[in-house]
């Protein structure tokens, strides 16, 4: 492509990492008291002093670390069990098909659905009300429990499918069939064979996405607002509150809090690295000791349950949202809405048309650009070095509240005005890492002999890329595009802050309307929010089929 292949990786890494670093700088200065617009033009530690003096701040920080870690551990564990039970079986393909659409469901929608399921006034307790006959919901602290257990459930329901699908994409690298066969010939059961022989290699391949989940879980705002505790809330919720508090002086404390959030996320990641070591050491000892796994049959059952858990939670949650969106007045303990109404949908469809259009344009622009950039980058530098991979994952590892506000100030200082182009570029920063995550593996795995044959026939680099590699990778390319589109469609904070609210998307509308608390509207908007990404995922096989009609070898 280019005579200096080094240039492309540097440029792409700069495109992704610079906005994050610039945004962090914009947060760093106010955290040390420098915010001239509020009369703060010297440096001081006052914001940090105020931060430390905030009642409950320590608990908030610990809560963020705990929920992030627990959600990550549980997601990885469940994904591992599911794979151990299902690798090499036909059920795996079926599960994969069921889990893929879950990626398209935005976190907030899944969280609302989960809340509708487990709250004292939710579906489960309405079912329980039939035999027990209570007419008021029990006074139980389930959603918003002080340990953040509901929050962890909501996160796992979304993150476990993500881990599982990423793992499935990397699975061929770990040569499961061959290794399992060897382990089984040594007398191990199927689950044990997977755990001992395949998982350690597989885990190394999916490490970065797992770390991204730990970072996400420890800094998530929307899910935490819906399912997390309130006395005190997690750190991310707390600092977002300060960020919008009428008391403008709290903006300085919020910036200091954003740095603390960065610290909490770092702590979660470091602790996770510790968990990794401990688990690896245990597994090594266990393998060295020899012998079989005692709970082979139990692992299989557990694994199947683990695989179905997110499907059930999110699926029932979405069903609940759908029911609410067509309900008239519907109160506890009625299991089904006594009256139906199309009013919510007719109002939603009327006012959602333009935000849906904006979502579509932003998603197409950013995901399209991300796929092109990912191709350029991988063509120049595949497989990605670890340093480059971490740099490219920066927007996923640094919590959004820690740099989005700073980035906004920075853009304004440079004279940037909110426009669709600026907003697409900002979306690109968040979309590209996911697209790379989805594409790097299939790209590196493609049999190099295809291109060697093309080269031996005298084809140049460009022709090899366009006529051999890209067609062969069409399916992963389309999937990466759909993932990028889903990421763009779900972005809230960057869209509202950097777009100055002038480019409402379906997600910003949904969040604004959700603050009104009407479950009917929340239901309708959550489904609308999931609709476009679902469509994108659904179109992948269709488009692929259209490009290669009737070619059996191109089916994957």
């Amino acid at each position, binding site marked *: 492509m280019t005579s200096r292949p080094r240039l492309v990786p540097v440029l792409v890494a700069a495109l992704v990492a610079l906005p994050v670093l610039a945004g962090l700088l914009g947060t760093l200065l106010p955290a040390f008291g420098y*915010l*001239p*617009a*509020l009369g703060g033009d010297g440096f001081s530690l006052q914001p940090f002093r105020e931060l430390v003096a*905030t*009642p*409950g*701040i320590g608990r908030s920080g610990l809560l963020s670390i705990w929920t992030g870690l627990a959600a990550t551990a549980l997601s990885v564990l469940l994904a591992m069990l599911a794979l151990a039970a299902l690798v090499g079986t036909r059920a795996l393909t079926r599960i994969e098909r069921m889990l893929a659409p879950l990626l398209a469901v935005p976190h907030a929608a899944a969280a609302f659905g989960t809340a509708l399921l487990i709250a*004292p*006034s939710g579906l489960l307790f309405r079912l329980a009300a039939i035999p027990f006959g209570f*007419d*008021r*919901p029990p*006074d139980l*602290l389930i959603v918003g*429990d002080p340990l953040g257990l509901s929050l962890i459930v909501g996160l796992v329901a979304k993150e476990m499918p993500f881990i599982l699908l990423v793992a499935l994409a990397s699975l061929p690298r770990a040569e499961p069939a061959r290794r399992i066969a060897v382990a089984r010939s040594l007398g191990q059961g199927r689950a044990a064979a997977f755990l001992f022989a395949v998982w350690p290699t597989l885990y190394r391949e999916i490490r970065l996405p797992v770390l991204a989940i730990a970072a996400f879980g420890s800094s998530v705002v929307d899910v935490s*607002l819906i399912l997390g505790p*309130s*006395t*005190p809330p997690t750190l991310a919720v707390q600092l977002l*509150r300060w*960020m*919008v*508090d*009428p*008391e*403008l002086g709290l*903006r300085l404390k919020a910036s200091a809090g954003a740095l603390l959030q960065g610290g909490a996320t770092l702590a979660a990641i470091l602790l996770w690295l510790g968990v990794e070591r401990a688990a690896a050491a245990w597994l090594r000892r266990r393998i060295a000791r020899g012998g079989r796994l005692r709970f082979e049959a139990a692992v299989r059952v557990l694994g199947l349950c683990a695989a179905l858990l997110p499907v059930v939670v999110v699926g029932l949650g979405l069903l609940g949202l759908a029911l609410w969106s067509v*309900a*008239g*007045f*519907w*109160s*506890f303990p009625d299991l089904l809405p006594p009256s139906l*109404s199309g009013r919510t949908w007719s*109002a939603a469809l009327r*006012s959602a048309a333009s935000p849906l259009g904006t979502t579509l344009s932003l998603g197409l622009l950013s995901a399209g650009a991300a796929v092109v950039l990912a191709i350029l980058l991988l063509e120049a530098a595949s497989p990605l070095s670890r340093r480059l991979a971490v740099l490219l994952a920066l927007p996923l590892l640094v919590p959004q509240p820690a740099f989005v*506000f700073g980035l*906004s*100030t*920075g853009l*304004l*200082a440079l004279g940037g*005005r*909110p426009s669709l182009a600026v907003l697409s570029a900002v979306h690109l920063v968040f979309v590209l890492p996911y697209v790379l995550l989805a594409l790097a593996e299939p790209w590196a795995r493609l049999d190099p002999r295809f291109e060697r044959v093309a080269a031996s026939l005298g084809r140049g680099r460009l022709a090899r890329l366009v006529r051999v590699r890209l067609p062969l990778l069409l399916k992963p390319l389309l999937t990466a595009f759909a993932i990028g589109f889903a990421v763009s469609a779900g972005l809230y904070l960057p869209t*509202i802050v950097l777009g*100055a*609210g*002038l480019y*409402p998307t379906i997600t910003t509308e949904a969040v*604004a*309307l*959700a*603050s*009104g*608390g*009407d*479950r*009917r*509207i929340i239901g309708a908007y959550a489904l609308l929010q999931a609709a476009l990404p679902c469509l994108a995922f659904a179109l992948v096989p269709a488009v692929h089929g259209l490009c290669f009609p009737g070619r059996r070898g191109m089916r994957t």
Partner: protein
Amino acid sequence: MRKTLLALALLLGGSVAPLPVAAQAAADWQAILDAARGDTVAFNAWGGSPNINSYLEWANERLEAEYGVTLTHVKLEDTGTAVSRILAEKSAGRTDGGSVDLVWINGENFAAMKEAGLLGSPFAADLPNAALLDTANPSLSADFTVPTDGLESPWGGAKLVFFADTARTGPIEAMPRSAGALLEWAKANPGLVSYPAPPDFTGTTFLKQVLIELTPDPAVLARPVGEADFAAATAPLWAYLDALKPVSWRQGRDYPDNYPAMKQLLADGELGIIFAFNPAEASSAIASGELPDTVRSFTFEKGTLGNTHFVAIPFNAANREAAMVVANFLLSPEAQARKEDPRYWGDPTVLNLAKLSEADRAAVQAIDRGAATLAPDALGPVLPEPHPSWVARLEAEWQARYGS
């Protein structure tokens, strides 16, 4: 240079016979209308209510038809987001062409924006419809005791009103009529009372209501908190909340996020009494199927908090003239009457009915408020808001005692 021009203008102005005041004002307003035509106003306002959102869509249609001004509703989850943006623009040196033309605020946000110099120059008195305002209402000129100084234009009224579902909790006449009685009711009905966790607006309002009722000398609340003995003034409030906590919803281990969350809890029977800052809230929630039609309103005998909400133009608004046209339209009898109608919103007017034409007055009086809304004369006395500096102290103290 500027001073020379000013002197020149004065000199020239002095030589011309001055226009009569009214004619001058009309000419000035016409100039603003001309400058506004074709502009788009970015109105930053909370977007959580479909009723309010539809109301603003209607306002946009009317404004486009009448003045050629487009109203874009930037739907906010929290007004603070807009304040943050204006602050970011000021930080970045953007003194004109700002992204917020008009913002819906009151109280603390207003006090903070005014103090930080985010509000530019006065405009409210220049609006022709300002002549119709109910000037007897002190909260129109002092927002949470802070003088508005023409930096914000009134839009609607607010008053704290309580709701209960008569089908679940019995006749509305038996409901508590003071903060003290509410505590007794909560003790008799454990788990059925709560309030949104401050700093939520409605939750903080509840703290202020209890504080005003119980504090030994309510007069200190009108002055900045720094001048009062905070501990002595608020001790009865904390004693009250300490007594409420064990008998409140979830034993005070969790609190509803905001008013809408309380509304859902009332619908499901998890709460027995809730409250809102809009007297018509229950009627519109019944109309939209969010509350059962057995919900009724009541207030406290000795009065509840009341205030006014406003629209303001940031210092760097890109379309100041068009924003003024919008603010003026929002004050028109037509827009105010529609706003007061619970079918569209149900927000009390800020106009003095006596100053309206007969037809306009009749339109307001003919509004059907529904059985769940108290008539304006049955809302009880209005208690004034404390000085805004009390809010931050109350919220911090609450956080330390119950929120951490």
